[in-house]
């Protein structure tokens, strides 16, 4: 009856099969991506060499949004089907997503220095990435703010859903705010205009990051599952010890009569 719960053994066996493939895929793709980004692609006519920073800035921004979407999906699953592994999946995804957002911000500001002359520009994309970073921090902080981990994950799941609904609204309002205060950003960098030779390193790095996510996600999940088991065992050992103590005291009374 109890194994109605998600049996982690199935998940762990699945993880064993996927993990080596994810590892190989990540390393190969990242190597290829680096090769294309640094050696094989021509410098941009306008920005010159600094366009190479874009090859890691844009994929990490994509990863930031990708991980937040996954966070919202796992939270939805956790709330609707009360799937215990879904909560753990949220705990495993959040740090990876937060790190990619942080990387997107860092590379964005480094990219801004040669192009716009200052480390930080209140550009619409960078600002909404900055806000997304705080949504991640809120999720992670809320998870660990409670004594029992399950309660924390449930509250964080609701926050992830609320945040997910608000991300498009925030994006829309920041774009509105940006057009209001800054008629046109200096470099109108529109997507489709990306030259085809630039597309291959961009996609390779993006796929490499996704492979990296799967790889690290599985590792984090193992840790989270082990952590959850430790919690369950510690609590049940206390419980068994208590029941045992009660049993021995009854036995002693019976013996005494």
């Amino acid at each position, binding site marked *: 009856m109890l194994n109605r719960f998600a049996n*982690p*053994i199935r998940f*762990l*066996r699945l993880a*064993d099969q996927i993990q080596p493939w994810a590892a190989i895929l990540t390393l190969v793709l990242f190597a290829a991506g*680096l090769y294309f980004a*640094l*050696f094989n692609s021509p*410098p941009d006519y306008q920005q*010159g*060499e*600094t366009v*190479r*920073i874009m090859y*890691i*800035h844009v994929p*990490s921004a994509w990863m930031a949004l990708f991980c937040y979407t996954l966070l919202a999906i796992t939270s939805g699953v956790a709330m609707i089907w009360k799937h215990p592994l879904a909560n753990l999946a949220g705990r495993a995804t959040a*740090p*990876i997503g937060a*790190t990619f957002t*942080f*990387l997107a911000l*860092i*590379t964005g500001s*480094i*990219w801004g*220095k*040669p192009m716009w002359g200052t480390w930080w520009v209140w550009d619409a994309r960078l600002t909404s990435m900055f806000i997304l970073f705080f949504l991640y921090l809120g999720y992670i902080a809320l998870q660990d703010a409670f004594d029992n981990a399950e309660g924390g994950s449930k509250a964080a799941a609701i926050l992830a859903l609320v945040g997910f609904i608000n991300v498009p609204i925030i994006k829309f309002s920041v774009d509105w705010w940006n057009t209001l205060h800054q008629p046109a950003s200096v470099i109108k960098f529109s997507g489709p205009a990306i030259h085809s030779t630039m597309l291959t390193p961009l996609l390779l790095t993006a796929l490499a990051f996704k492979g*990296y996510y799967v*790889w*690290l996600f599985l*590792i*984090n999940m*193992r*840790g*989270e599952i*082990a*952590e959850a*088991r*430790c919690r369950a*065992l*510690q609590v049940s*050992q206390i419980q068994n010890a208590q029941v045992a103590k009660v049993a021995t005291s009854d036995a002693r009374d019976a013996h005494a009569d």
Partner: protein
Amino acid sequence: MQIEDKISMHAFMEFIEMNGHAAFIWSSYGIVIFVLIWLFIVGVQFQTKSETKLSQLNPRPRHRSGVRSERKTGKQNEA
């Protein structure tokens, strides 16, 4: 022999120098790779720490990929 080396050396230096933006490009790549590796190490440490904690709490044969079969047989012939 001398000239090719010099040319390749020159090309290599020029490549590194990325006409003036070397610092920005290499620093951003360096930071990204460093942070990704650091996050990976943190993940692995977290996994091993909690799994060792688990094995101490519950010494019965746990699901360990690969190790599982020999652990189980080891158990059987002991019992």
